[in-house]
């Protein structure tokens, strides 16, 4: 699509985000009306606005529709196994603390199969950013219930309506120890972008939830209209409540969606805690990662 719209002036890039998108991988696989395109766009604009070395930025995804983000961003990017983006990212970050590691994945991936990794990374306060795009459903596999599916909502595995209590993800992340917790919807593109920037710069474990429409297998099945209808729903029902206790930010079918920055506290990140605790045992002249013998020699 981007090339078709290319401007005649050869000095101009074909696409304003060309620098950070794998143009040879586009068009993407997401459905019309899906919130993933806007989420990724906000993320990329945020990265462009940030004054960081993008060579050191890494995106790690799990499996699912959101998991495909890693395939489109032109950064070092890893599309790992289902649920495992966070431990993979943990290894990356600890082996080279200079990296800015962003996990971009979906609600099923991060809170069901990867739920244990989510709470432990938050507890440890690993210095990574987790962007969780929550569309209340397993999209890629055809619309099965997720830990986030609201009560009474139908899915292919809750044909009579969901009767399991869903996770309130910001509450879960905050309770587990995240130092930065925020939520926006796919409608709030500028706020989402600003929050992502803030989260990436925040030392420690930051968690950003993006509520996103899945027109194909969630909205349709629940007779909630199309992507645009959901945008209107967000417009009507989203309520910005910065600083609210995330326990009060649960989502119910047809109810309002509390958005905003809920948590922004200071707590030393894992790497800092480790260095402080290890003190002199840790030879500070050693440059990680271990393969850089020459750097190590230079510092010694």
């Amino acid at each position: 699509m981007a090339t078709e719209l290319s401007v005649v002036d050869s000095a101009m890039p074909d696409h304003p985000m060309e620098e950070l998108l794998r143009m040879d991988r586009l068009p993407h696989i997401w459905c019309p009306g899906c919130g993933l395109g806007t989420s990724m766009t906000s993320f990329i604009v945020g990265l462009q606005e940030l004054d960081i070395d993008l060579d050191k930025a890494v995106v790690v995804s799990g499996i699912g529709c959101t998991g495909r983000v890693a395939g489109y961003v032109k950064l070092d990017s890893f599309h790992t196994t289902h649920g495992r983006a966070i431990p993979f990212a943990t290894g990356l970050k600890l082996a080279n603390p200079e990296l800015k590691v962003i996990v971009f994945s979906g609600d099923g991936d991060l809170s069901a199969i990867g739920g244990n990794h989510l709470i432990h990374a938050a507890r440890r306060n690993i210095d990574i950013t987790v962007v969780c795009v929550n569309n209340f459903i397993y999209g890629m596999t055809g619309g099965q219930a997720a830990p986030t599916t609201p009560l009474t909502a139908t899915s292919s595995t809750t044909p009579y309506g969901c009767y399991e209590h869903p996770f309130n993800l910001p509450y879960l992340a905050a309770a587990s120890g995240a130092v930065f917790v925020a939520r926006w919807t796919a409608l709030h593109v500028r706020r989402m972008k600003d929050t992502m920037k803030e989260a990436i710069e925040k030392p420690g474990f930051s968690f950003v939830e993006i509520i996103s429409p899945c027109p194909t297998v969630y909205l349709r099945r629940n007779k909630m209209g199309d992507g645009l209808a959901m945008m209107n729903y967000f417009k009507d029902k989203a309520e910005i409540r910065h600083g609210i206790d995330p326990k009060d930010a649960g989502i119910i079918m047809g109810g309002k969606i509390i958005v905003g920055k809920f948590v922004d506290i200071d707590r030393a990140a894992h790497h800092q805690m480790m260095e402080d605790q290890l003190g002199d045992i840790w030879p500070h002249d050693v440059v990680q990662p271990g393969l850089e013998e020459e750097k190590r020699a230079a510092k010694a």
Partner: protein
Amino acid sequence: MSEDRSVLTGDHFITGDEACAEGGMAAGCMFFGGYPITPATEVAERMAKRLPEVGGTFIQMEDEIASMNSILGASWAGAKSMTSTSGPGFSLMMENLGLGIMLETPCVLVNVQRGGPSTGLPTLVAQADMMQARWGSHGDYQLIALAPVSCQECFDLTLQAFNYSEKYRVPVLVMTDESMGHMTEKVVIPPKEELEVINRKMYDGPKGEYLPFKADDDLVPPMMKVGDGHRIHVTGLTHDERGYPVMSADAHETLVRRLIDKIKKNVDDIILVEEIDLEGADIVIVSYGISARVSYRALRMAKEAGANVGMLRLITVWPFPEKMIRELAKKVQTFIVPEINAGQIVLEVERCAAGNAETVLLSKLGGAVFQPEEIVEAILAEGKAPRKKASATKKKAGASKKKAAATKKKASGAKKTAKTKSSKKTTKKVGR
């Protein structure tokens, strides 16, 4: 400022688990992600103490799934990395062992085997994960698995495992067991300059042109470190040389065939065995790990009793030394395979013997190692048996001494595997 603590040159009286950790340290391991599990915990404990001394990172992850993933991430960030576990944790690691194979990620996994299935015998020995080591993750692949026979080899082979893993960009397994893991023994760590340490090939071309899965002639692609500015994409999906997913039979054939061939075509380099008195032997013990250790004595005792017996010790268990067994089968009467499982490696021996020699399983299901006498008895029984060339696999229940029904199998089509690249006869002796 600080002295180099990576290689603790000198004589040590340490356990097999600790020796595995020191082997990793000597190889330059800088990251360990693990989870406590008997009888492998001591590997993690040693690394927790040792890694900070060299500026490396130890992390106790929330489970073995996370441990395996963390070492993959760390390896891509440029750090040599390892983990250790036992049965239940090994099962959990299988998912992302597959990811490591697909992403061609150098890393080392030490499995200190215990009795299974399930929780089984946490504090007691078994060798029952040998087939899981080969086939435990889904899909087709090849990997490398080494089996130490002593605490010294726990050190030597963990270092060797790192070397293979760096050289071939593949996860390498060190298949030790509870008896070795908890045994304390003299381990000699040589001076750093005497150790052969291999580091992965790194891409040194211009930025933006790097193809992370474009292999050189040795079928192994050079690697990079995350953050080097190449902005690569890496996926567990079937992918092309750029790392981009391609959902096609052709792409899958190209990729997976190469993942298999990069090991199979290098078996000459990878396969390590110890040969003892094979020349002219009627009976050959084929064993590995702690069962091979016990077999040393059994071999001597059987010889004293007049048996014409030799021994082939598998140091590299996977890839399996197919060619060597095939050649040997033409010369010997019987292979005796003692292993602490219900019969795993014996299946490979029998397959490669292809009816040219008899294959006898000596089986113990875990909880104790063989007594040398049990192996001697089997050797002497075979020595008395009439020489016959028909294929037959006998099973002996080592513990109960009950003879199980002999499984007779006709050797069928052993020679039809024309496409399979078999190993050239490789005999490397590693001092024990």
